[in-house]
């Protein structure tokens, strides 16, 4: 014990200025990430504004009890998990494929301008994207339906109001918005692959496709693994803005997720304790998943997060 303590102290006193530089970051995390955790205790209380966080009455597990007995909650949980499953199956691989394609583009200016255009949706807010998506999918005036009926003779489909089509639209819109931006990390990882490997592969007579499978993909394995772990941590969480701007009363049965539920109960309904309990439950499941996936990935021989 003593030895560890003293060596840590020696470290600090030797690099004290470097640690000083670390301070702003640390203070940020303590102040804005760890200190607010104190507020989580209202999940076990009946929070009344005037009594404050500490002064409110303890309520035990009452709010969790209500949560698990709420029929709505299970539907919402199912929707959240399903949308995230689609996201892991279809949205997660999209930037990898895109990055592989971009990586093979040889003309520099073409690659650059292509990348710029792909990044663009990332900078547009969901309020605007939502409006764009609703209008291009409109059955009477939307581009997609006009093409479908003129070219294929299909009856107009009201995509946004159909519980079957809505999750598909949701997933495709995620790909559209995030895939371009997501390529950045993969492209950086591909840039780090030793060119000698490609040369060796070429000498051995490997085709482009072979090179991708046996050089590029293994080269970015670590990056994919880390991003997958982070993605799993979000499996209980569907971005509020996207869902909120795309949903409507005809598709609540598939589009209502935990984040919109918390917004409705906590911010609109002012049931602070209950909403906190939902959030806490969501956070704990997320943490467990991150731990499990991290472990699994480490056992597969990758570095993992820690």
């Amino acid at each position: 014990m003593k030895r560890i303590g003293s060596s840590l102290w020696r470290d600090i006193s030797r690099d004290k200025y470097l640690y000083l530089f670390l301070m702003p970051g640390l203070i940020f995390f303590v102040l804005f990430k760890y200190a607010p955790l104190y507020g989580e205790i209202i999940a076990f209380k009946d929070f009344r504004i005037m009594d404050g966080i500490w002064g409110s009455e303890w309520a035990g597990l009452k709010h969790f009890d209500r949560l698990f007995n709420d029929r709505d909650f299970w539907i919402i949980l199912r929707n959240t998990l399903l949308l995230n499953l689609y996201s892991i199956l279809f949205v997660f691989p999209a930037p990898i494929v895109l990055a592989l394609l971009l990586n093979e583009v040889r003309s520099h200016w073409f690659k650059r301008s292509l990348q710029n255009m792909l990044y663009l949706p990332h900078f547009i807010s969901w309020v605007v994207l939502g409006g764009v998506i609703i209008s291009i999918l409109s059955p009477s005036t939307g581009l997609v339906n006009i093409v479908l009926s003129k070219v294929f003779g299909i009856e107009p489909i009201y995509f946004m109001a159909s519980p079957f089509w809505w999750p598909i639209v949701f997933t495709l819109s995620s790909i559209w918005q995030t895939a371009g931006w997501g390529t950045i990390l993969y492209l950086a990882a591909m840039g780090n692959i030793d060119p000698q490997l490609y040369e060796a592969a070429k000498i051995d007579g490997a085709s482009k496709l072979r090179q991708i499978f046996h050089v590029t993909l293994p080269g970015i394995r670590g990056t994919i693994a880390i991003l997958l772990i982070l993605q799993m941590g979000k499996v209980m969480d569907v971005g509020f803005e996207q869902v909120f701007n795309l949903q409507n009363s005809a598709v609540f049965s598939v589009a209502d997720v935990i984040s919109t539920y918390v917004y409705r109960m906590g911010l609109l309904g002012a049931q602070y304790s209950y909403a906190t309990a939902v959030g806490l439950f969501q956070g704990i499941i997320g943490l467990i998943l991150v731990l499990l996936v991290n472990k699994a990935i480490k056992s597969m021989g990758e570095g993992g997060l820690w």
Partner: protein
Amino acid sequence: MHRKLKKGMPTVAASMLSVMLLVSACSNDGGGSAGTGETAQPKFSASIYDRGAVAADQGTYEKNKWTDWIDQESGVDVTWVPIPRSQEQDKLNVMVASGQAPDVITSYDRAMLARFINQGVAQPIDEYIEKYSTSYKAYLEANPELLPHLTFDGEMYAIASLRPTRAQTQIWIRQDWLDKLNLTMPTTVDELLEVARAFRDGDPDGNNANDTTAIAMSSAYGAIIDDWYMARSGEWFLEDGEAVMNFFTGRFEDSLAFRKQVYEEGLVDKEFVTDQNHARQKQLWVTGKSGIMFGTILDGPYPEFFENQSDAVMVPVPPLATKYGTNGYQKEQPNYLLSIMNKDTKDPEAIIKFVDWMIEDGWRPLTYGEEGVHHVVQDDQAVIIDSEKFKNEVSFMGEYRIVHQETMTPESLMAAAGDDPVQQKIAELRGEMIKISEATPYRKDFPYPPTVNEFSDVSGQFSKKWTEVVTQVTMGGPTQTPEWGIDQLEKEWSNLGGPAINELVQEWYEANKDSLD
């Protein structure tokens, strides 16, 4: 590497530290006292609706020419806290929960304020009014009908004045289309359906294309239909002395049936669910693609309507009869905004003095602008000189009136319209609408939602449910009938603990019977 870096480091670190200290020092004495020169005046903070209506060259809601004028004239420095109109619940909930609520919270949402009061955020104001007020006290004595709306749990918590007009919802119709197709003004809901079908099929705009959507909607669409059947969604009714939610009065089924029928017959826009801000609907109405508008005092007589189509004629439809009789159009609660006072307010006297000044003198310039610049006075009526200038420089100021004495009558509206022909048409229509609204009584059994916590806790959740069920019945085809809808609603309501809440509301009603008329 380390060695080289280290030399310059102490100075860098020292300067960083001093910057940090400076920042924290600044934020300590901040507290929003920007104008330190005039600290002699008493001050308080107040929330205000931000409708994004302040033009850039006029300043902001927090500070503009008029807020300076208010501070100067009232003798009180008011710090205005803008709350986006469409986000008042989440913004105010967060402010209140984090102890950052302004001294005065102003809102139209009585249920939300009741919750704040129940949470101990506000304080009763009877005593302060007794002690400090003269003008507002006299105003209250002259308008005792306000009192029940200001009272929570037997004590007066809120400050309010009367609305300029209580008229709210209205169906508008194209008189020129009625004439062209030889139709008469509908008097019953069935006749309205006939007219709508004729509009759909009769090519009233004469463009030889089958492109007319008979009915355009606004946010009042559901409300108007519910009101025909005296079953406004989410409200409570008294059926033989018993408090019942509208869905379970037996009449709501008719409301569902109507919505389903017009949807299936293609009399409304089939894409209304994704048109959440009703922009498409407004477009249909102002471009002459639709002949009936389920609107309000604001939605229907749009300036664009007359600017786009100079020969179009719009008129209000009188209340329509159903098998349950004729219910009038919605009349709003008599009170305008409600303002409650934070329990931690340092200077209640300043607030009351401000309210006194506002109800006595302040409201007039905030309503009509400067005399000689924005309006002239003729026969005791303010007449707007230039409606464009008025819109730009004055119209947003109405938000600052916590209380006022403006009344909207057909005459005052006409007078205020000035010389602008479009504004005159709008004023005339609103005037007719106010007459219609006043002529027929509107059934509202509870003047405001029951202040029962168990009900407010679930009302948000239930409201999402019934929106969903209403949409399902409307769009769901032959299997999702109105009866099925009522069935669903009953299930959802009992899932949320409905039967127990019914009893609590009944108890609340019995206890407050006398003050509810």
